[in-house]
């Protein structure tokens, strides 16, 4: 039974983290290599704030989300927008966006490594306690339950927003054909900034939940998580929210099984092999849409 709790906890964090990556990749065609560092840096800034102030859980969550959102908006304005302005098309900008993201991510990473001397840092408890909750044969912490709730709620909210609202429609149309969407009167810059801010905010939230539920972070914790998020996005299909949810659960289930039944050091190979198998067998992913270029 504990098995299921572990999968749900891990899966909810994966979903929160990969949703933003997926959204930005599917709508703007940007593969953001700084997404992992955003996750860690949001936690780091929250960690510094909690060192001087005791805050309720909701405020801590919002703080993490705000830090993540600000960092990705900065990245978009300072790096991705100039690169896109200087490239004839998004496909020709692909590699420069990748490098720009990598280069930008080195900056907060180097800052954190310098400040923390590469030691792990966690989050202090504010004016709330992390307490165990027992329901029959299930055992979890209250924060893990909040995390699962948040992932389900936000996943649903974003899916509905994308499908029903005008802003969501604008974002989806960018994923299909950005120049034509621009001609239809969609403010491409505003939509892109909104998507980036949302992605960064989700990464920050994922960071706070992750740190309270699983373990402390080191500055480079984001790298591995980023590769896992790639696996989830490719498994589920770029741009698909349902795909991200299924992908997160599948990856979490696969990893928890590997951790339970083997010595554990093979666990990272799961996500790498998933990326590889999926790209070879079905490049559009489980829930992929046809109109977005993939192969």
């Amino acid at each position: 039974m504990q098995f299921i709790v572990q999968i749900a906890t891990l899966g909810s964090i994966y979903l929160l983290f990969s949703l933003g990556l997926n959204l930005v990749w599917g709508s703007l065609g940007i593969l953001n290599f700084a997404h992992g560092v955003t996750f860690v840096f949001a936690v780091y800034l929250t960690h510094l704030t909690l060192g001087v102030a005791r805050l309720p859980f909701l405020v801590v969550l919002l703080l993490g989300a705000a830090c993540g959102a600000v960092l990705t908006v900065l990245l978009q304005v300072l790096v991705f927008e100039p690169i896109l302005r200087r490239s004839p098309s998004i496909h020709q900008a692909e590699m420069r966006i990748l490098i720009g993201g990598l280069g930008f991510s080195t900056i907060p990473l180097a800052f954190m490594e310098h400040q923390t001397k590469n030691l792990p840092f966690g989050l202090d408890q504010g004016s709330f306690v992390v307490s165990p909750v027992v329901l029959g044969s299930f055992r979890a912490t209250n924060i893990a339950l909040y995390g699962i709730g948040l992932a389900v709620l936000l996943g649903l909210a974003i899916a509905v927003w994308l499908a029903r609202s005008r802003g969501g429609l604008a974002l989806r149309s960018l994923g299909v054909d950005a120049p034509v969407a621009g001609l239809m009167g969609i403010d491409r810059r505003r939509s892109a900034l909104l998507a980036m801010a949302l992605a960064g905010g989700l990464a920050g939230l994922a960071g706070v939940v992750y740190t309270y539920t699983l373990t402390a972070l080191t500055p480079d914790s984001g790298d591995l998580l980023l590769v896992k998020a790639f696996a989830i996005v490719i498994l589920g299909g770029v741009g698909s929210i349902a795909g991200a949810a299924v992908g997160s659960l599948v990856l979490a289930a696969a990893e928890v099984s590997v951790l339970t039944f083997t010595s554990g050091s093979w666990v990272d190979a799961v996500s790498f092999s998933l990326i590889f198998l999926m790209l070879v067998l079905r490049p559009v992913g489980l829930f992929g849409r046809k109109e977005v270029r993939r192969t």
Partner: protein
Amino acid sequence: MTDFFASNLTLIQATFVGFALALSIQVPLRLGVFSLAGAGAFGLSAYATALLVLKADMPALPALAVSVVGSTLVVLLLGLVVYRLSGIYLAMATVAFDLIVGVVALNGDPLTGGSTGLYGVLTDFDVVQMIVLLVVVVVVLAATERGRTGRRVDAVREDPELAASLGVNVRRYRLSGFAAGGALGALAGGMAVLTRSAISPPDVGFSLIVLALTMIVVGGTRSWAGALIGAVLFTWLPTLLTAIGEWQDLVYGVIVTLAAIFLPRGIHGVVLDAVRRSRRRPPDADGASAADGGPDVPATEATEADRAAEAFR
């Protein structure tokens, strides 16, 4: 000169290894194939070379040759499997391959030495042999950058359909690019283990990909000279940056980000533009600068823009 050579031997060796590694990403890229499999080949070949020297007592060069051929075959096989992918999806598939090589190295304990890796790979391999190998590589690559082959390579990258309609076998060119990337990565890996005498899982990880990409983006993506500029810069920069000391990584990040934004063709592209401008300056000074088309336009398009600008006047 010899003093400088002796006291900086490690850095010089690292420069050459970095050069071959950067080429392993750049060569497929010149054919429009965004393959990062060279980093995986680096790992395969580094471990293979170390094992051949340690377990089979082979001399350096035969061990290197066997590892390079073996790793290239593995990468070619990978290329056949992932051929239908392109762009960022191909990049992700090859990154997955690279990371799997790292996990296997970490877990293949009796053979690969687990997290300690393999050490004590001592041979008579020296810098002269390295230079000879790389000169051969550069001569071959320079031949693919000019004349008929050069134009075909450009066509396969810029417009595969057009290239195919002109009778260029696009599939063969792309697969050769993929395999050449593997061979160069394998060469880099083999040389790395022969000069450092040790290899461990962190040496074949994600950082290799970042390093190689950084080198060619800052140096230049279209010519071996760009890879060399990048390799020299990013091997020597850390020693020059010791003045900045603990903030070195941060400065590094800023440089890479700025290069990605402002130098789409790298330092090599900037140098080429400067040379072209200085040659053209005398007859028509302001026409030349107007016709340059800015640094954003790739080489082939720059010349077209020039012609268009002239026709306009």
